[in-house]
């Protein structure tokens, strides 16, 4: 997995709460058996005026000029500023894949849906929870100032504005450790293979009905 330590980038503010994963990447694009290539269809229904289909050249499609990511000033944004309950709904990991493929590295919101939050970490994407009033402030600043950038330091757990104001955020130690070092979760878990086997052996004794399929 790609490591994440620090990142500075342009901020795109998406002023809408309860953004669900169907909205982030609509179902017709979930038919791919790959992990990449979802970027052009990120927020497809909001971003384009026509109906998106898999395998179509999105550069030829009519853009919705009102959608924030289509505005010239937000081109190249890598930090998404969002509202509460971001990523709710379906567990599709295609949502963080699409955000990542588009170029986002950080998402800041007052709250995230659990599964989405977790999926981000597996893909080198950092979701940051900040208090609602701080997020409000960042929205105001990002909308007021063209080219507004934030810098994020995962080691120090801080988000810093262009004026030097710094906010700290919380992230649990295991996720932070894996992300900072780009660790493969599975490899880390397999270091405990003996423990897993011991647990399994004990369960075979105490709860034998959990083993061996019926058919």
């Amino acid at each position: 997995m790609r490591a994440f330590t620090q990142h500075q980038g342009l901020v795109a503010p998406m002023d809408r709460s309860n953004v669900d994963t169907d909205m982030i990447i609509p179902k017709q694009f979930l038919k791919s058996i790959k992990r990449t290539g979802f970027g052009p269809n990120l927020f497809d229904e909001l971003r384009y005026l026509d109906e998106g289909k898999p395998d179509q050249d999105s550069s030829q499609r009519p853009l919705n000029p009102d959608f924030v990511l289509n505005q010239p000033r937000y081109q190249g944004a890598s930090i998404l500023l969002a509202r509460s309950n971001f990523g709710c709904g379906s567990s599709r990991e295609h949502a963080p894949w699409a955000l990542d493929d588009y170029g986002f590295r950080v998402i800041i919101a007052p709250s995230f849906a659990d599964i989405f939050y977790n999926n981000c970490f597996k893909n080198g994407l950092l979701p940051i929870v900040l208090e609602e009033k701080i997020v409000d402030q960042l929205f105001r600043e990002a909308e007021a100032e063209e080219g507004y950038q934030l810098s994020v330091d995962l080691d120090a757990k801080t988000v810093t504005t262009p004026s030097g104001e710094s906010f700290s955020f919380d992230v649990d130690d295991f996720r932070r450790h894996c992300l900072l070092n780009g660790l493969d979760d599975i490899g880390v878990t397999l270091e405990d293979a003996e423990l897993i086997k011991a647990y399994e052996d004990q369960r075979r004794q105490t709860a034998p009905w959990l083993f061996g399929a019926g058919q």
Partner: protein
Amino acid sequence: MAGKTLYDKLWDDHLVKQRDDGSALIYIDRHLLHEVTSPQAFEGLRLAGRKPWRIDANLATPDHNVPTTDRDKGIDGIVDPVSRTQVETLGKNCDEFGILEFKIKDKRQGIVHVIGPEQGATLPGMTIVCGDSHTSTHGAFGCLAHGIGTSEVEHVLATQCLVQQKMKNMLVKVNGQLGEGVTGKDVVLAIIGKIGTAGGTGYAIEFGGEAIQNLSMEGRMTICNMAIEAGARVGMVAVDGTTIDYVKGRPFAPKGETWDAAVKYWRTLHSDLDAQFDKVVEFDGSEILPQVSWGTSPEMVADITGAVPDPAKEEDPIKREGIERALKYMGLKPNQAITDIKLDRVFIGSCTNSRIEDLREAAAVVKGRKVADSLKQAMVVPGSGLVKEQAEAEGLDRIFVEAGLEWRDPGCSMCLAMNADKLGQGEHCASTSNRNFEGRQGFGGRTHLVSPAMAAAAAVAGHFVDVRELLNPATGEN
């Protein structure tokens, strides 16, 4: 010391290792797979040269992409080549690794959350995961069950464990008796309407109280299914006689002495009387009316006797904007009566409401009646091949067809419209599924979430109608 909640018990029984950083390794007893969220996980496994840890813990079936007609053609019946590749890929992956799969022509095929319980592959006290957020459904059996992303699918395949943080405990208690015509679906919609789509975020919800205890397993599954729409990855109901009766005799269920030992353990799967919950929310079951969602989030619901809200009356500016945006998308006016919403299509199906009892409830309403002429389509999609078979044995298919509803083959179908079944732009659909997000059932489609009985009543009337009037025409007013 305070007693344990059901969630605490399930957690403790599956804890392989508590790490110093607060995370824990949790053992997974059952892993369900479907075609959409698994291909990248199998690919990852292959790339890393890993093998599944425990083959017999896995069970797979294609459901999201399968067509609901022409099933005798098997995979060749899937017209969309991309969908076909996905279903084929699942088949190849399962064959390669020796994982049991109910393939498209197997009568045990169906929606993954329907077939697990139906086969007894879902047993009380298990940890169950699947790359699908509605895995919470299985919590109805006193399981710790939740959806995971594709990276975690790979993680479970490779290690039979997940790295988890313990959630907080929430009890949602529904007291008293439900009124006539009020189902598990209405209960869960009313709960989401009250606590909101983020109300359960970070919590494992246990549903309890007299009204829940009186529900059948189907009703409990409907409620746990939509825990995720309340923001909670996990929904659960304690094990009782209803649970054990349902499991008994199913193909994967234990038999003989093992069964007796299992039952003894299962009987302990409830929260202790003195267990402490971090949050408790109570409802009076007798006050819950049939529900209809009017907006683009499952918390946007109203009683059938109610009306669409007026954004002008909402003080919170973000909420007001949310309502305005939803009304615009849904093509509804503030204060419009719910019964004035006209429908284009009706969909009875999905992992929320496609089990035999759901179909019986719908059939009871349409029996001897006709679907309104104004509807373009009304369809019933059973949750599995076995549900279909059972329904046909009971003659439900004929009731539906005679009333003018289409009787289809099992799959997710119009719940998310990954196959050919979808809404046209601007069309209103009464749907027994679980998500009314923009575009969920087709680009520009407008979804209203309801119970099977309410969907059936709407099919007959062509607009929403209080199902209690149809169940009881003598006392109902029109």
